[in-house]
């Protein structure tokens, strides 16, 4: 079975599965020594690592990138110039309140379907799509490495055990950033809400069973399009979602993580701080080496002292 790689949560794995292809959410490690895109001042290292890891994967038959941020839109330009793997740019609207924006997303999914067929997938099969959506709902997984473990490989919540309950909020994490969870635990914290893109925030809500049976693609599109993110305009839904999740999780503080050149998340920090009624620690990561352990540990430790 051919494998289609993607990383953005707005790419529905179920839709790829409905074409008889394997969806793999590729969260970059990043793989050492790859340099399809060299390190460039000003470029988000997650976007760069994603392309480099795609280029280094020899079992990927196609790759789907989205327009959710400028760096991804730009690395797509280089990806198609430098990597032979067929690539598709999915236009995910930033606005979400109009029917036209929702329609555009649905049309883009259909266009993605045509790309998948060109790559050797079959025409989308309604039953297969329903099955994939139900599997997702049951946590059985269509994301290649076992959903939702594709995300949990990075971290995920540890709702039991000791430590000060904390929320981790931000953009995506790379696989090697999972060390962050250990650092937090070592310093006396416990992540009860992983609101990163590679955590719970990147998982779409439950599907409506009735609508799923009637028009699964429409239901899929609506569920994915509702995912909250800093990049939506306006991004009020992110704060609405966070409000609910923070209350449910019982987090006492927030650790806010972003990569250095990620404008969309970086800009959110000050607002989140004003908005949240909780202490917030910001960790900005260069992402181009193991997390600066000493610095991170010291900062997390100092933050944890506030809770004593």
């Amino acid at each position, binding site marked *: 079975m051919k494998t289609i790689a993607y990383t953005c949560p707005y790419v529905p794995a179920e839709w790829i599965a409905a074409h008889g292809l394997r969806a793999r959410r590729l969260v970059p490690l990043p793989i050492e020594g790859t340099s399809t*895109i060299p390190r*460039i*001042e*000003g*470029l988000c290292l997650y976007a760069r690592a994603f392309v480099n890891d795609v280029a280094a994967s020899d079992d990927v038959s196609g790759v789907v990138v989205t*327009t959710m*941020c*400028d*760096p991804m*839109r*730009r*690395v*797509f*330009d*280089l990806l198609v*110039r430098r990597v032979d793997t067929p690539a598709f*740019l999915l*236009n995910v*609207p*930033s*606005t979400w309140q*109009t029917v*036209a*924006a929702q329609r*555009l997303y649905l*049309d883009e999914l259909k*266009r993605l379907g*045509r790309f998948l067929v060109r790559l050797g997938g079959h025409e989308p099969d309604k039953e297969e799509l329903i099955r994939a959506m139900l599997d997702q709902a049951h946590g059985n997984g269509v994301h290649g490495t076992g959903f939702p473990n594709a995300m949990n490989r990075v971290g995920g919540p540890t709702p039991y055990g000791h430590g000060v309950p904390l929320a981790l909020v931000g953009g995506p994490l790379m696989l090697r950033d999972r060390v962050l969870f250990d650092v937090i635990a070592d310093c006396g914290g416990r992540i009860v809400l992983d609101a990163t893109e590679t955590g719970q925030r990147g998982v779409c809500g439950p599907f409506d069973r009735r609508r799923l049976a009637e028009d699964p693609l429409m239901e899929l599109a609506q569920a994915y399009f509702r995912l909250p993110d*800093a*990049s939506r*305009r*306006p*991004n009020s839904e992110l704060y609405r979602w966070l409000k609910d999740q923070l209350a449910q999780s019982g987090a006492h503080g927030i650790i806010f993580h972003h990569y*250095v*050149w990620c*404008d*969309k998340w*970086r*800009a*959110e*920090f*000050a*607002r989140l*701080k004003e908005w949240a009624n909780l202490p917030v620690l910001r960790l900005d990561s260069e992402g181009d080496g193991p997390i600066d352990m000493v610095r991170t540990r010291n900062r997390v430790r100092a933050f944890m002292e506030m809770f004593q």
Partner: protein
Amino acid sequence: MNEAPRQITLREWDDRYERLQTRGVRQPVYGGPLGRHVADGDTRLLKLRYDSSLAALRLWNFLLTEEDRLRAARDAGKKLVGTMKDLGTVPVMAYSLDNLVAFYPDGAWWIPCVMEVNSGLLQIADSLGIDESFCPVRAMLGAFVTGTHFPIPDLLTCSVGATCDDFSAIAQRLNGLGHPILWWEIPHRRAPEVEEEAVQLPGDFSAPKGQIEFVQSELERVKTALEDLAGQSLGAEALAGGIAKANHVRWLLAQLRHLAFTATLCPMPALEMLIAEMLAIHFCSDQDETIVVLQELLEEVNLRVAAGTGYSSADAARVFWVNPVADLQVMNFLEDCGGRICGTEYLFAHALDPIPQTVPPMEALAQIALADPMVGSAADRAVRIVAEVRRFGAEAVIVSRIPGASHCALEGEIIGEIVRQECGLPVLEIEVPPLTDAMSPTLRTRLEALVETVENRRSR
């Protein structure tokens, strides 16, 4: 006036202004000596060199009095529309309604340069979490907070989607501070697929018809908001009239650019040409006056070309410039180093293209919005640059990076790759912060080296 053109300092301009006054030369209402703007804090003006024509004086005074114009418009009962991240589409609609004035809050981009970072706007942006990792447009946030550089508009629109993250993030921060924004979506322009109907756009790009229809529906939402604000409807005829007027501005600019980039001697310096091009985006808050200003400039240029006068020498290195410079002084540097501008792509090439007049007006605006070089791929943009490089016979390309800009990290690499491949020209990438004083020797050396490369290639 047909004197030999010279680049003069602000002080020289003020002396000259006095002499002109005694000779009874008339000025528009916003006219006056340039030096008075320094008293308002625009200290960078002291470091620039200006074209010595009355047409250039009018251009500068027009540019530097926009805030007064906006306040006067409000006092006169007009409604103000801030058209953010919109390079030449919504203003065309706004100016088709007689009681609206559109302006471009993003223009605050140049305040850190013009006021030599003394305005405090960047510090305000810093305090709001928008630090130097964002492009200089973050000054806009400070301008909204202080309310001192432009009046707070009655309606704020902002295009999002295939736009830079810098602006999108800053506009969202502004929204979070309580400024309502009408967001409209501009999708990433893509090539039509085999089964899709293709539409040829201005600037030689193409897009699927479905994308045009989508953008048109987005612009309809904006139009409704403008009509509500204006209290009048905007019919197809009035809009067609607005488009025709915008096209007149674009036509004047096309003439100017053609002469400035192709005449044997450069008839108008790079700095004045940059300012002139910017007028096409939003008409500096007065569309009629924009036309007069550009007409005068064009007359001056025509006279100079006819008289065979101009700047530097006929063998100045012919440079195509990509992206606007955050420090205006750098345009002077290029000429100091033996170069001249022969072609530009200042991020808004589509605002210079004629808006189609053979299709219904809203569809035409959707086409022009999608023709924005920044909403497509960098490769598309590079192809347009290559065509213009050939048209104007440029011998080198400079891609000037804007510090912090999300698109700048990679686009230079792609544009450079394609330009070298297609034209075999030298490409220089430089970064221009709002104030280049500390780095000007290095910058000049790099520009000189590029000019030398051009000269060496000629002698080969």
